[in-house]
């Protein structure tokens, strides 16, 4: 028996008195349906605590008589395994068993579901005021319910004048420093409440969802091509990764595979995006430490990469390339060769930037031992991507769950132990350089042929999820289609949503003036997390 099958057997025997349905839709995907009750939560806790699985996300689906909740897990093993545990709760029952009280990573997922659907989780120390801010939204609005008409504007909500922030620091003279939602020049809107008595941040509390555009709700009722536009555009700085995951889900449902050339080109483009995004994050870090020369050097490289993307793919953020079944347009071989050539220069410049930053003590002083996230903390918050890898959590979907032919490129997973700002910067540099390597190797032996497999039978009444390693970490896109092939439910778990949850770990205990620096080293996107 393979280790994968062992897990299935063990779950079956441990919960033998419960009616479990265990399926293998794919060799690396295990689906467990537990029916009603809290068995799902028990299994989830066991998977995370005993078997080292990572909680990847949660999707709630509304049925007429019950709520169906899917929990998704994956492990770091190579080759890895996806496990989806689903359970139902009758709608008559007011409370759904909470996973967050046992697996902390599920915290924000449940809070989000609470605001989305108006459902309560038993045992979750609810905080409210999450997606729908308390100061504007009255109680009792659940936008994700089917009965809610998303096209109607509700403008007369008014503002609650008596709103005041929830604070947990009770010390004489303590107050909450407010930052945002509009702050600091070019920043996405977030409202930070930094609780303090005047020197160090004792508690950092980011209030997100100022950019909530209800992508998941808007996708409902659209056809696949319409939803693709949303998938691509809800967070443009990682547009390719998102559309990639979306297309994966559709391809899984349609049971097709992109042609080899498209698969390799997707790898190439995804890495180009990662490289650009990481260089942008490095620019942000240099900027936050007010190291203007380094900032403009990184900015120069970022713009060069944007132009390169525009040159080979038409769009600077690679819009309009991914389509279910492959790519909308082929990239000329010449363009790919040119890309490889230019990348050599950029790689060189990046390596030199890294070297110089590593010897600039005024810069290192601001990053080293600042914003520390321990491996343990990162683990129980289920952090992903470079942030997790800087805290010594070696996990990368490209390596553990290779998709689209990543296995051919032997992706190295850079990681560091310290978990401080400098470790995160080093990981960003290492990954950027690794991406450049992958691009060059992909461009070198590009298979020939078509770039798009036509979809014979449009999928209907089906569902699947796609998962890619976006620049910020694992990005999961669930898609349910109805009988007409329209989107019935679209659920996105982007990496920034997960990492924002753990951001406070880094900010707490450090001085105010370190706060923007710590924030920049997390390379978070608000557009991505707010959706």
């Amino acid at each position: 028996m393979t280790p994968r099958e062992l897990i299935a057997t063990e779950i079956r025997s441990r919960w033998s008195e419960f009616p479990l349905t265990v399926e293998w839709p794919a060799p690396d995907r295990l689906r467990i349906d537990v029916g009603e009750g809290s068995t799902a939560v028990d299994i989830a806790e066991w998977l995370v605590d005993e078997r080292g699985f990572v909680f990847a996300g949660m999707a709630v689906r509304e049925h007429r008589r019950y709520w169906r909740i899917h929990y998704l897990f994956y492990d770091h093993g190579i080759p890895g395994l996806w496990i989806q545990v689903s359970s139902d709760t009758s709608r008559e029952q007011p409370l759904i068993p909470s996973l967050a009280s046992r697996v902390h990573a599920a915290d924000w997922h449940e809070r989000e579901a609470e605001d989305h659907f108006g459902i309560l989780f038993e045992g979750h120390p609810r905080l409210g005021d999450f997606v729908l801010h308390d100061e504007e939204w009255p109680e009792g609005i659940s936008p994700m319910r089917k009965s809610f008409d998303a096209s109607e504007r509700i403008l007369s909500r008014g503002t609650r004048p008596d709103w005041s922030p929830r604070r947990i620091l009770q010390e004489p003279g303590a107050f909450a420093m407010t930052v945002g939602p509009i702050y600091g020049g070019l920043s996405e809107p977030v409202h930070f409440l930094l609780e303090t008595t005047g020197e160090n941040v004792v508690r950092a509390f980011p209030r997100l969802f100022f950019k909530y555009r209800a992508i998941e709700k808007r996708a409902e009722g659209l056809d696949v091509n319409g939803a693709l536009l949303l998938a691509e555009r809800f967070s443009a700085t990682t547009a390719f990764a998102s559309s990639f995951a979306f297309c994966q889900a559709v391809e899984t449902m349609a049971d097709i595979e992109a042609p080899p050339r498209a698969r390799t080109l997707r790898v190439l483009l995804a890495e180009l995006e990662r490289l650009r995004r990481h260089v942008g994050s490095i620019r942000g870090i240099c900027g936050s430490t007010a190291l203007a020369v380094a900032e403009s050097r990184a900015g120069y490289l970022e713009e060069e990469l944007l132009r390169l993307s525009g040159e080979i793919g038409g769009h600077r953020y690679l819009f309009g390339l991914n389509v279910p079944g492959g790519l909308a347009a082929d990239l000329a071989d010449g363009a790919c060769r040119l890309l490889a050539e230019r990348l050599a220069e950029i790689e060189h410049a990046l390596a030199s930037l890294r070297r110089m930053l590593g010897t600039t003590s005024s810069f290192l002083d601001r990053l080293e031992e600042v914003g520390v996230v321990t491996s343990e903390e990162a683990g129980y918050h289920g952090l992903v991507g470079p942030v997790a890898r800087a805290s010594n959590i070696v996990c990368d979907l490209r390596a553990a769950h290779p998709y689209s032919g990543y296995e051919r490129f032997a992706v190295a997973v850079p990681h560091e132990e310290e978990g401080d700002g400098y470790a995160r910067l080093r990981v960003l540099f290492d990954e950027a350089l690794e991406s450049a390597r992958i691009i060059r190797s992909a461009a070198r032996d590009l298979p020939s042929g078509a770039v798009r497999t036509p979809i014979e039978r449009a999928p209907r009444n089906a569902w699947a999820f796609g998962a890619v390693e976006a620049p910020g970490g694992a990005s999961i896109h669930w898609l349910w289609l109805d009988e007409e092939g329209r989107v019935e439910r679209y659920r996105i778990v982007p990496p920034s949503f997960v990492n924002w949850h753990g951001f406070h770990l880094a900010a707490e205990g450090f001085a105010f003036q370190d706060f923007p620096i710590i924030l920049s080293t997390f390379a978070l996107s608000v557009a991505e997390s707010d959706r």
Partner: protein
Amino acid sequence: MAGWFLKGVALGVKTTKYPRRAEQAPGVSPGLPRPTRFLDAAQAQEVASRCPTGALSASGSEVAVDARKCIHCYRCLRSDGAAMSWSDDYDWADVPESATGQGRPLGFEPRFRRSVNILVVDAGDCGACLNEIAQLAAPQYNLHRLGFFLTPTPRHADLLMVVGPVTDAMRYPLLAAYEAMPEPKRVMAVGTCALGGSVFGPSFIAGGGVAELLPVDVEVPGNPPPPLAILHALRVVSGQIRGARR
């Protein structure tokens, strides 16, 4: 520290010649479809119907383009069959009809033109517009050389640059920022979302553009508008040149 200086010198001047000369480098713009004449009306209809945002409209065998709605999905270009012709320019910014003819001067008075401070408010964009504005500070564009400066506070701002469709949660902050700006002030809507909501709005939670809330002086189409398009728009709003008048 000396190392930084030497490296910087070694890089040489990378700044674009724009606005003195058009920037020719590849990849500076995603381009826009150009009004195109097709063989017959059916073909024109077919091409126009591909557009998911209604940016194309066919009349006879001609297809007209509403640049304010295009989101660069390339479906009118890359699908099988006839394609729109494409241009890679970027001087797209224009003054909306609502702002002309109200007796309100378009650009700033001459004495404000040489130093315009910009407050950027992200009202729900996808991150691309914001990133393209950030690129303006990169050496290739070097915004400051033209007298434009980004500021973090509305108290110093002359120009409010809004990106995104204006989500509900950002309505109040956006209005507050506008209120807090001293006169004279101008508003620039940057990107398709800020012009009409694009794929995000209007919906129950996101608006259909900045104009619903504030008087917009200059509109910049594009999803996202590339840095040069924003630079062009800045020159329009500061009164240096006139808009594209598409």
